């Protein structure tokens, strides 16, 4: 922290003669980072409605959605900078017909959406060595859906009837079809429940220098081939609220295997 402060101080001294505009920006000492969660399947680019095969099982996805939350950047001196209100719905999905419909009106449709990037704003200038984020929604917000922060909402289908009886958020949802070559089954692998809220720390391959004038980015791979790692998905193609024992290893996969750093710029 001392180092950051002295850099800011030094910068302020150096730029005292510059224009007012520049001065203001430097004194703010804040920059932004684009965080991209790039969906992949093994070494292939992820896409909906495309066959991906691993260990004799073929997956064909129609949606991949999850809550990315509580993003923290860790500086080289170990200081943690929390991005306020960081609850983002990351998704790649076709149209979704939302449950809960007025009989006199057509079904509410959530449009096809692809969202992989978020911009982390107001990050203090400095050097950062790692990024920390969570998958799911922390207990305070998960237990009380009238509290809202960031993009948390009941209006986007990341809660549903079976979950409503626990009245909490679906943390992750990966759906489509799965086949072993003989039979094809409808697949919906979801996580939720406070015990499955996971925080992930990824060290950056090189320090990320954030300043008010440069644009920086962190790209994280989100590997869907790892989501069901170790799970017999042909036996358990549907994992939901009532399948807590199968759900726990899925949540652990998200915590330990799905996310890796791809690049930092």
């Amino acid at each position, binding site marked *: 922290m001392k180092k950051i402060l002295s850099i800011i101080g030094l910068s302020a001294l150096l730029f005292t003669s510059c224009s007012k505009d520049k001065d203001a920006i430097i004194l703010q000492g804040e920059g932004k980072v684009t965080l991209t969660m790039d969906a992949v399947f093994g070494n292939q680019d992820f896409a909906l409605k495309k066959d991906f095969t691993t260990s004799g099982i073929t997956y064909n996805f129609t949606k991949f959605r999850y809550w990315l939350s509580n993003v923290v950047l860790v500086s080289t001196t170990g200081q943690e900078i929390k991005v306020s209100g960081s609850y983002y719905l990351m998704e790649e999905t076709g149209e979704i017909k939302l449950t809960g419909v007025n*009989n006199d009106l057509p079904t509410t449709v959530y449009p096809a959406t692809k969202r992989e990037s978020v911009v982390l704003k107001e990050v203090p200038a400095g050097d950062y060595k790692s990024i920390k984020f969570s998958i799911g929604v922390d207990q305070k917000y998960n*237990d*009380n*859906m*009238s509290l*809202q922060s960031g993009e948390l909402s009941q*209006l986007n289908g990341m809660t549903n009837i079976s979950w409503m*009886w626990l*009245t909490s958020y679906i943390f992750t949802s990966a759906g489509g079809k799965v086949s072993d070559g003989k039979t094809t089954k409808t697949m919906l692998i979801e996580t939720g429940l406070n015990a499955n809220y996971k925080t992930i720390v990824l060290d950056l391959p090189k320090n990320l220098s954030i300043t008010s004038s440069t644009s920086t980015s962190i790209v994280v791979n989100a590997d869907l081939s790892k989501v069901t790692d170790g799970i017999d998905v042909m036996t358990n193609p549907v994992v939901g609220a009532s399948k807590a*024992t199968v759900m726990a290893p899925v949540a652990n996969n998200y915590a330990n295997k799905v996310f890796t750093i791809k690049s930092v710029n």
Partner: protein
Amino acid sequence: MGKCAFLRIPALFFLFGVTFSCNKENVSEEVSQAPHAVKLRVPVNFPPVLEHADNPLTEEGIELGRMLFHDVRLSGNNKISCASCHRQDLAFSDGIALTTVGVSGQALARHVPVLFNLAWAESGLFWDGGSKNLESQALGPLTSADEMFQDLNVLEQELKADPEYVKRFAMVFKDGIRSVNVIKALAQFQRTLISGTSKYDQYRRAGSGAGLTESELLGMNLVNSKCKACHSGELFTDDNYHNNGIDVAFNDDHEGIYQGRFRVTFNPLDLGKFKTPSLRNVLVTAPYMHDGRFKTINEVLDHYQSGIKISPTTDQLLYQNRGQAGIPLTQKERQAIIAFLGALTDHEFMTNKQINNPNE
């Protein structure tokens, strides 16, 4: 409506007076005085109540919740309100084992619970505690296909089309009509549903000897010694979960709805445990149990006397018959217990005009 309307009329006149002579900012200042904070009126024999800092009670919020609670526009087919299944004259229960009044017409898997003294329900709502607070709870029945089946986006549109709601939401919540504010207002109203004016309460507050008959007093002592381990305290519930021996096995159909508390905790020790309902108003809230299987209070007493089924989680508190499951009762004792339960009926609560349909 009574009290609040009385308070509001002079306030409105005052507002008009101001608008004639002042600019807009002054008006919004006057409006911003609302909402008015409210403290729950807790009966003296009741335990203290926790306050919910995230959704503080206000006069206007409670009244808004009361309007919403009784409004059929909250359902997808605009035919049923919360009050359709939670009738004030039945202590906000419905008198039906498994209702089919929902939008789909399908019978529910669970019996409609009573709604009173919810301000003290801090260990979860629903028969299994699947919801942690009244705010989140409302989303269950609001969206369930077999209940109100409401699209929350549509609900916001419908409410925004009503100038009265636009005005009232704006008074209570900075961001006006939003589905989160619907559930907050409903929660505020429900926290004011306090049943504490039964004959028993008058007896408790007047001191010993007053009010209760000999039979009712005998019944009270029997309830104290045989039932109070679960139906405890002045709320007559421990707000906890028990397997009271109505089934031998608990299958995992319907996402575990018959497994009780286990469905929420996934702890094998919670299999078949359901929330202890209060004994207050119990004589007007038949049928009984989470699926409404017992039609009368006599069937309930029969169960506790000789119908307890044994499974690994059957509550030890039911072993009151020389080490065997069951609560032995004589005919006279049963009559006394029923007489005392009658003294827990709160007629004032069930006819209170502060909590009825404001449009009636």
